[in-house]
């Protein structure tokens, strides 16, 4: 039996400062997340400069807590990893610089991790799900359908042409006065509404590729709200939320199922912030069953931005021989599968 490999993963690409310790790419020893949501709420979205300032204030506490909760000291860590893109460049630089410095001073290998590949790798936590599979990664900043051929091997099949799914949720939630962040707010409101009340147009539904668009839907919702207000008619916020959510979910699921069929793959996974949407999970299970596919999703805590997923992605990169240089830079628009 080979020696265990313990990885410390650091994540600071957006508004969560996070660190996690993972053994052999699947066993989570700790996962500490310091969320800044309350700070950004009053701005209605993430303010990059404020996020970066907060990261630098809390990073040492977050990393130390992750080590203590895992019951390890830095010397017992085999690999140190940090997200280097995509994300807010100023925010990325905090975790990346910190991770490189920690690794350098401890003479440990350093691995830079692609944030989206981290979300995909969150599926491996627990150790019962493995490639190949089709994965929908959707969150505030990104929406992709990816064919995961093997660990670290990706084929991007489709992506959003405009807004990310999470972004659309944020914008619609704001228009409905439901607050920020939009994902959980819409999901909660939708539970009290009739999802068949309003028929919004489904963007790209009939297209044969796997790309999608949320900007048209967002505009349709805003136009609907305006029309109702002009007519002096009451707006049922819950119905709008439920109808909007159903629209997004139906489009995403259709694309996902089509992608699985086209690759003849019977495993589908969803990851990223939007993957914690219960309605999406339930609908996907129903549709996947019809084609005999199995659905997997990481626990909700591993769907938000976190350090454990970064550690897991780094583990699979590391055992394939990938080690990053001390000159690794933050890359705000890093693509899936791009290696630096």
């Amino acid at each position, binding site marked *: 039996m080979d020696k265990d490999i313990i990885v410390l993963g650091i994540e600071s690409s957006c508004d969560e400062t996070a660190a996690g310790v993972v053994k052999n790419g699947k066993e989570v020893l700790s996962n500490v997340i310091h969320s800044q949501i309350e700070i950004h709420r009053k701005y209605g979205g993430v303010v990059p400069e404020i996020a970066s300032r907060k990261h*630098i204030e809390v990073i040492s506490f977050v990393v130390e807590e992750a080590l203590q909760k895992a019951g390890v000291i830095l010397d017992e860590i085999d690999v140190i990893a940090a997200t280097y893109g995509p994300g807010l460049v100023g925010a990325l630089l905090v975790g990346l610089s910190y991770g490189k*410095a920690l690794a350098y001073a401890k003479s440990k290998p350093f691995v830079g991790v692609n944030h989206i590949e981290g979300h995909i790798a969150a599926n491996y936590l627990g150790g019962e799900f493995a490639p190949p599979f089709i994965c929908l990664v959707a969150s505030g900043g990104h929406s992709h359908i990816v064919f995961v051929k093997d660990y670290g091997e990706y084929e991007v099949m489709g992506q959003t042409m405009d807004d990310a799914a999470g972004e659309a949720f944020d914008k619609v939630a704001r228009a409905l006065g439901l607050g920020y962040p939009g994902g959980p707010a819409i999901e909660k409101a939708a539970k009290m509404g009739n999802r068949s009340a309003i028929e919004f147009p489904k963007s790209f539904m009939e297209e044969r590729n796997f790309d999608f668009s949320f900007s048209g839907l967002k505009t349709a919702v805003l136009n609907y709200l305006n029309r109702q207000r002009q007519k002096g008619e009451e707006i049922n916020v819950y119905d709008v939320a439920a109808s909007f959510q159903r629209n997004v979910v139906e489009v995403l699921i259709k694309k996902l199922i089509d992608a699985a069929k086209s690759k003849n793959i019977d495993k589908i996974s969803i990851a990223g912030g939007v993957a914690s949407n219960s309605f999406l999970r339930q609908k996907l299970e129903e549709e996947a069953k019809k084609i005999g596919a199995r659905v997997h999703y990481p626990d909700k805590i591993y769907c938000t931005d976190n350090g454990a997923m970064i550690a897991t992605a780094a583990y699979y990169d590391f055992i394939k021989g990938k080690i990053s240089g001390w000159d690794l830079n933050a890359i705000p628009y890093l693509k899936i599968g791009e290696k630096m």
Partner: protein
Amino acid sequence: MKVLAIDSSSKTATVALVEENGVIGEYSINYLRHSVILMPMIDELFKKCEVPINQITHIAVSEGPGSFTGLRIGAATAKGLAHALNIPIVGVSSLLALAYNVSEFEGLICPIIDALNENVYGMLIRGDNFEVLTEVGVYSLEEIAGLVRNYSSKVLFVGEGVYSYKNKLQDIIGKKALFAKDKDNMARAVSLGEIAIQKIKNGEVVSYFDFKPVYIRKSAAEVRLIGEGS
């Protein structure tokens, strides 16, 4: 006492190894890209000076003012190193370090960093004893001229701000204004390190948990929110 000094608050990336009885080495690159070059520079410095990293007793780092991103690259690097080595951090004002480049000047020293739109981060220091006359702040060029008028001695401007505002300051202040040479307008980690050694002797160190940059300015979004009165 062996200090690794790091300053990435301006265009210059500069790192040095400094002891109580002298400088072991310094490495400066006057060309941005700090996120790419800072860690390799530190690596190179340790290798060429043949100092094992675990002999370092303190990390000195520029606490600001300066480029927000530059400050955070330096701060995150310093905190990460200090965390790994379990040693304290010494935060040093980037303006004070610039003034130290010309500390033998006997008049007034005014270190300036461009804060855009004819504003500078600046302070006023007496050259002979390094007494701080005016605290760090954001000043317009006219305000700087006003500060200088309170004193009869000549004032030596030093720092990157000199490149942007030399002519304007000369116009406003006249003959009393002197300007440092290029070699002194560049941030130098040895200056930062020597100030740090004094601070260490005074017990002015902080834990890596608590160290954070001093930005002087709020973020634009905070300013807007305060302006809206919410």
